[in-house]
């Protein structure tokens, strides 16, 4: 029974919401504009750290702290976008993956009185939790989780609506044409560079909201939550759902997070309770590795055999880098 209930539980939990938002941001980048952002974790991290440190160390109220997080993610988008968006697609990918790694190092090793190294920032949730209307938990979620989930899924709904409105607008049509043929858009007199930068900022801000929800759900901000795994899980979720569809990152993320949780539960039962797999082949510490190997393999197979994912339109996604 656990095999069903635990994945179902995890698929809607705060952490899943944070991945949904990260994948939605990537959808703006990759799905609609054709930008390869391999550093979505950096946006989530910068948002979460800015909010967490502002509240925990400087006693900033909750809402201004969130706004601060958004501002920092906009700055990050400018930092990564300005040098790279005039160049070939791979340069953005290289810079984003590198910035994400260096930021993680930065949060782990410097300013320990604010970032607390690997222990992470904590003690910033009281303002948010005091507004909690739920008096008790249900369905296996604590009342804090329920409150984070309510806000998180409302944010998902809001950003879905925003994305839907934006991509139907003239602005969104320019983004999609940039994805299809940059030179053609340029010949029509559009400033491709600024459109790309705006898309990078918008997707990054949605990613930062993913960081907020994840941080509130865990009640802490730790550097290792934002390693490259975060980005690539979000990417796999997006591709699974199908890029360039408003709702597909949501479905892809819930489905994929549920599947990962199912795999985790299954493997730990196989080596523990049921004792089918001997310890020499797989021990409990290696379950995470096996799970992530599955993430990598799914990303490869999806990209090779079904790049449009579940809902995508193959014709719409004829992206080419050269």
């Amino acid at each position, binding site marked *: 029974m656990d095999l069903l209930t635990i994945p179902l539980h995890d698929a809607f939990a705060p952490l899943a919401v944070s991945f949904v938002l990260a994948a939605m941001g990537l959808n703006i980048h990759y799905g609609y504009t*054709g930008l*390869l952002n*391999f550093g979505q974790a950096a946006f989530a991290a910068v948002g979460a750290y800015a909010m967490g440190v502002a509240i*925990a*160390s400087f*006693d900033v109220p909750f809402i201004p702290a969130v706004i601060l997080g958004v501002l920092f993610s906009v700055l990050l988008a400018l*930092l990564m976008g*300005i*040098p*790279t968006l*005039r*160049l*070939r*697609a*791979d*340069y953005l*990918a*290289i*810079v984003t*993956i*590198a*910035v994400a*790694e*260096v930021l993680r*190092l*930065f949060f*782990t*090793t*410097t300013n320990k*009185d604010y970032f*607390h190294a690997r*222990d992470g920032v904590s*003690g910033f949730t009281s303002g948010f939790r005091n507004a909690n209307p739920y008096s008790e938990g249900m369905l296996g979620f604590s009342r804090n989780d329920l409150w984070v989930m309510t806000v998180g899924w409302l944010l998902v709904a809001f950003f879905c609506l925003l994305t839907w409105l934006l991509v139907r607008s003239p602005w969104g049509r320019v983004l999609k044409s940039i994805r299809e043929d940059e030179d053609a858009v340029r010949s029509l007199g559009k400033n491709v560079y600024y459109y790309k930068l705006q898309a990078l900022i918008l997707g990054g801000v949605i990613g930062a909201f993913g960081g907020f929800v994840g941080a509130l759900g865990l009640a802490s901000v730790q550097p290792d939550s934002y390693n*490259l*795994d975060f980005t*690539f899980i979000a*990417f*796999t979720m997006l*591709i699974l759902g199908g890029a360039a569809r408003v709702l597909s990152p949501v479905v892809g993320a819930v489905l994929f997070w549920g599947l990962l949780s199912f795999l985790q539960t299954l493997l730990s039962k196989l080596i523990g309770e049921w004792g089918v797999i001997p310890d020499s082949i797989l021990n409990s*510490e*290696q379950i995470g*590795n*096996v799970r*992530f*190997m599955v*993430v*990598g*393999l*799914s*990303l*490869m*197979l999806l*990209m*090779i055999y079904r*790049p449009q994912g579940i809902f995508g339109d193959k014709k719409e996604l*004829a*992206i*080419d*880098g*050269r």
Partner: protein
Amino acid sequence: MVKSRPLAVLAALLVAVLTLGIAVGASPARADDEDESERTLTAQLEDSASGNTPVEGVEITVTTSDGDEFTGTTDADGLVEIVFTSPAGTPVTVSLDEDTLPEGAQLRPGTKTELTVSSTLSTISVDFAIGPDNRDVETKLDRIPGAIYNGLLFGLVMAMAALGLSMIFGTTGLTNFAHGELVTLGAVCTYLLNVAAGIPFLLAVPMTVVVALGFGWLQNRILWAPLRHRGTGLIAMMIVTIGLQFLMRNFFAYITGSRTELYDDFTSPTGKDFAGLFTYTGRDLAVAAVSIAVLTVVLLALSYTRLGRATRAVADNPALAASSGINVDRVISIVWVVGTALAALAGAFLAFQLGITYQIGQLVLLLLFAAVTVGGLGSVWGALIGSLIIGVLIELSTLVIPTDLKNAGALALLIVILLVRPQGILGRRERIG
């Protein structure tokens, strides 16, 4: 209250460390329970005036925030251990009774007899300096030759991996995000052969190169060649490389149990001094010699052999190369084979500096990107020069920034280069737009 405490504790800690020049094991001071806990203070007193001989019979007192005093005296080894109880999370004062110092022993000028320790660890150690300060203080200037030497060595090894990355990019247009994992492959494969199978290191490395040649051929055969023939876009292929990177990285983590391992051989070579400037080892020289030899052979082959010229023709214009009778697929296959082997060889050597861990790939990937971008993506000489620049830069940067952050310097250079000369030092402009 809870918020102000870490700051206050930190300030106290800072004062203690700065004024007394002692190392105090610090930990985040966030103990919430007010229980009394039993803790231990240790100290070892040595007199630097007489060649660090132990100082015996010195009385040391711990005063807790309650005012309780616990006293101990150093033994024949100059050691003292005081067990005391104090309210958790409050600082204690440690004082040394100067009158009990033996004849001739004197506290170092500037050393105070009373320290405030705010560590919350169960065992705290303090240090009172006795005798004149005769430590060899190494200045930043003294470290420059050593940093350049280490940087060049690191850059030479990394250049082999960068060359492969650049060649694959040049001939196929693909940025291979899994290239770092090919480096890890070299380290892990050599480790398995050397430690698990007991093969000597000098034999394990050539065997690893052979394995990597095979792996390079195989990955082109079953993955990249079919994708190219199908006309898969480059962005889609880049995402496939990311998937492969993820798969391989976690596979290596699974194999090594996420631990950092060492080879059986050549782990601690004896260092020799070079004109008082830096320390080198025989192992370093051998690694450098092999790297230079391999790089020379590959670069000469690219310039002067038929195959090398064919490779450069494909990099320049695949369609034109094909129409002039070059078997483009064969050239690309060889580039994958050679590129993988070069990366694996670099990995086998880099493991000396980084240890054998699944995280080599991710770290090296970032530096490789910085190197090939600085040198010029797609240019073979650029890969070499970029690697050397990045290698020296990250080592030199440790003189001014914390060692943990040294790789950030490489990234800063990457961004600056993209802003001012996106094609890199030796790259050509048409490749970037």
